[in-house]
């Protein structure tokens, strides 16, 4: 099967090269057969990558320990669930997984537009094939996952051997979320290839109109949604496994995943300027280019060892390949832009600074500044070492100080932007839209002050969250009220109806609401408390309203590890609430230890308990308990963001006027001169 997999990868590379070179020839010659054959080569590339990926999975499931990658990342006792995830647990496999996900996107694009956009698709196909060639080069010639296990003999000749068992999967990765977090994140990274291909393709083809923007937007939303899910799942994994009580440590690899998310978010907003007003064409194209570049940069940071991170793969020479690819992309993007920049001439005209256009411009500015701040902080240790010779660490305190004010500014714009009108917003409209939300926000702030709220950032965040939530609720309320008056339906049904009539707008509001929940959760971090204590059996620890009683210990042998558990009874007001079992796991195969945190989670707070090993002084087991307010809001907010994105991707239902004599909720005079009772019905576009 390893030979089959290797062969499939080589063939995929050949097909990708044909799709690329043939595609360029097809663009020049415009020969229909050549265009068709290059598209088919593109599809064959994807099919062959699928075969290679399934081959590697088969090697894992069949415990083939003659393959170096399988030996390094699996063992016989590893559960089926984790054998699936072992594919992306190391450098070589994760690069193949990258190619696999990219192939899923590429084949989806090729099938979706097989008979559409004939002028644009050959260009898009060439760009996608170009990206595939790069990753297939890595898969075939730099980091092949199908290398046989070999050891050099006395004569220097490699002897191919097979082991009876493998080294096993890293303990930190043996957690359910590790099976879904990387695929989501990688789907985000790879997904941004498609908007990039459309943007570059449209620029090269000088594709007329804004159609490429419409096509790009949907693919960007898909990639953005996966990136959002990937980031949040990663945060949740860090929270539940690493045991340091937090979910975001501003680790370079975490930052790398956040950067394209920020520019992707900026693009999703600024693209509306181009769609509606024909503005910011150059900016939008460059935002797509930068987002893709940041995806490749993130992969480079994770795999090159240029920055130190717990998430990074082993240091290797692969980084130079990424640097070369980054340089090539920048060169191509600049070349295409300089050659065709007149194609991006915008119809920039603005009536007032108080307008939706301005708010989008500032929204983009803030997102970009945040991106620059995080990128510069992440790379600063490298620059510092180059220039001064000293390597400076840039940890979480720096990123928090820099990004919290930026985040609050962004949150403010989240509330303001959608309520401003295109072109110009009147003073009357400002009062009508912002009066109540502002008042509700400020009153909440005053009440919070009265209750002793003294953390400045969290206080501002609370006010802004209430303000933004009020603006969103008010928008739904006003729209639903109109529909309710006409249709007589319930308020909830009217709100759903409203959403389905303009999914993009109201889906966007739902996403904003999700972000409000996330910000609320983040604001709670200012009130985190923790306590650590050496515990004997029967000892208690008090944290907040909870009493933790150590009832004892037990040992739980599992197939792949042995767990030592603390049996902690949680009491509240002297009444038993529940049992928590924080554990320490010992993995015999890898001779490594891991933690498994126990969490009692409510909307108000998380009681987060860690078995932190034994005290070096007393040899007693150490219980580390945290009380983290509002953490659940972050995960809930993430789910709302994903839901809102899905809603925004749905097609609009069109409101249809249907004449009916049976219902009389409203009587209107129709333009045609008819007078009749009118009900609203819907039909899909």
């Amino acid at each position, binding site marked *: 099967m390893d030979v089959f997999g290797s062969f499939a990868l080589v063939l995929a590379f050949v097909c990708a090269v044909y799709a690329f070179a043939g595609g360029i020839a097809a663009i020049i010659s415009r020969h229909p057969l050549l265009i068709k054959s290059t598209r088919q080569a593109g599809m064959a590339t994807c099919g062959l990558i699928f075969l290679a990926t399934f081959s590697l999975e088969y090697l894992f499931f069949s415990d083939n320990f003659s393959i170096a990658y399988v030996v390094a990342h699996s063992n016989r006792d590893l559960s089926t669930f984790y054998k699936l995830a072992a594919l992306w647990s190391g450098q070589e496999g994760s690069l193949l997984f990258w190619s696999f996900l990219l192939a899923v996107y590429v084949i989806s694009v090729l099938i979706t537009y097989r008979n559409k956009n004939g002028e644009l698709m050959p260009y898009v196909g060439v760009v996608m094939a170009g990206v595939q060639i790069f990753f297939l080069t890595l898969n075939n010639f730099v980091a092949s996952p199908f290398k046989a296990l070999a050891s050099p003999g006395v004569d220097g000749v490699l002897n191919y051997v097979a082991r009876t068992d493998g080294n096993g999967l890293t303990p930190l990765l043996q957690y359910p979320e590790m099976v879904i977090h990387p695929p989501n994140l990688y789907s985000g990274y790879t997904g941004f290839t498609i908007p990039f291909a459309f943007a570059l393709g449209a620029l090269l083809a000088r594709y007329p109109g804004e159609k490429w923007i419409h096509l790009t937007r949907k693919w960007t939303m898909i990639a953005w949604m996966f990136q959002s899910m990937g980031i949040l799942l990663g945060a949740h994994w860090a929270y539940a496994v690493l045991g340091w009580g937090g979910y975001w440590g501003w680790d370079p690899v975490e930052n790398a995943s956040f950067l394209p998310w920020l520019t992707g978010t900026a693009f999703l907003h600024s693209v509306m300027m181009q769609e509606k007003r024909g503005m910011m064409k150059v900016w939008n194209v460059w935002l797509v280019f930068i987002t893709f570049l940041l995806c490749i940069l993130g992969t480079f940071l994770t795999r090159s060892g240029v920055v130190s991170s717990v998430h990074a793969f082993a240091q290797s020479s692969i980084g130079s390949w990424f640097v070369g690819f980054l340089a090539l992309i920048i060169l191509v993007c600049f070349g295409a832009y300089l050659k065709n920049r007149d194609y991006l001439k915008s119809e920039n005209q603005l009536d007032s600074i108080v307008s939706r256009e301005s708010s989008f411009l500032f929204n983009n500015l803030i997102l970009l500044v945040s991106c620059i701040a995080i990128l510069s902080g992440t790379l600063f240790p490298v620059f510092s070492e180059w220039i001064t010779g000293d390597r400076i660490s840039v940890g979480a305190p*720096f990123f928090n100080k820099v990004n919290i004010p930026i985040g609050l500014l962004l949150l403010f714009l989240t509330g303001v932007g959608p309520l401003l009108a295109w072109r110009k917003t009147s003073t009357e409209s400002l009062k009508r839209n912002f009066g109540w939300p502002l008042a509700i926000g400020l009153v909440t702030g005053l009440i919070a002050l009265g209750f002793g709220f003294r953390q400045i950032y969290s206080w501002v965040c609370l006010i802004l969250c209430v303000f933004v939530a009020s603006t969103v609720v008010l928008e739904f309320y006003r729209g639903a009220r109109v529909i309710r008056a006409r249709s007589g339906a319930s308020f909830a049904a009217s709100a759903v109806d409203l959403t389905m009539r303009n999914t993009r707008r109201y889906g966007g509001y739902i996403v904003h609401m999700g972000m409000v929940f996330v910000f609320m959760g983040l604001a709670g971090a200012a009130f985190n408390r923790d306590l650590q204590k050496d515990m004997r059996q029967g000892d208690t620890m008090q944290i907040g309203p909870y009493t933790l009683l150590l009832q004892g210990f037990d040992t739980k042998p599992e197939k792949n590890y042995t767990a030592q558990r603390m049996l902690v009874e949680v009491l509240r007001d002297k009444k038993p609430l529940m049992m928590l079992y924080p554990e320490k796991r010992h993995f015999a195969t890898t001779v490594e230890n891991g933690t498994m945190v126990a969490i009692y989670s409510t909307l108000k707070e998380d009681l987060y308990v860690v078995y932190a090993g034994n005290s070096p002084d007393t040899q007693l087991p150490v219980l580390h308990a945290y009380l983290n307010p509002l953490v659940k809001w972050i995960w809930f907010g993430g789910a709302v963001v994903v839901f809102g994105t899905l809603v925004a991707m749905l097609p609009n239902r069109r409101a249809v006027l249907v004449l009916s004599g049976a219902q009389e909720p409203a009587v209107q005079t129709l333009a045609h001169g008819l007078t009749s009772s009118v009900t609203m019905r819907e039909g899909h576009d």
Partner: protein
Amino acid sequence: MTKARSIAAIAMLAMFAIAPLLITPVGAQQLSDRAKQVGGKFMCMCGCSQVLTECNHVGCSVSASMLKELNQSLTRGNSEDVITQMFVQEFGTKVYAEPPKSGFSLVAWVFPSFCLFVGTGVAVFVISRWRKRPAQHMATVGGAPGISAEMLERARAQASRETQD
């Protein structure tokens, strides 16, 4: 934009830009003891990229010994500066959890604020240029002479686009 509005906007922007330099980190105030407060300013040197007081990898001997050293130093009554010097001598400048606000490291602090100011300047410049441009393709109401059906249709499509979201 009136002068008062401009001043207010710049003041607000400045507040956000310099806030990172002035305000203590979130969470610093509720730390229960001084060791945690001082320890929050250093990185754990085990390679985990975490702040010293937050590293609790099972069996991390580095953070345990660093915290012990920190506690002993505080017990001796050493100031934060002395402790900082001690750790810098032992581990180098990479022990700082955040770049010092001096020398080349100041660039890390100033750069985001600089970008915010420059970006805002560019945005304001761009907006003011957009405002000076004359409106394009604006059809008058009522089918005024010289307006073709095509122009009217285009204006309707534009109005529809601009009022949908």
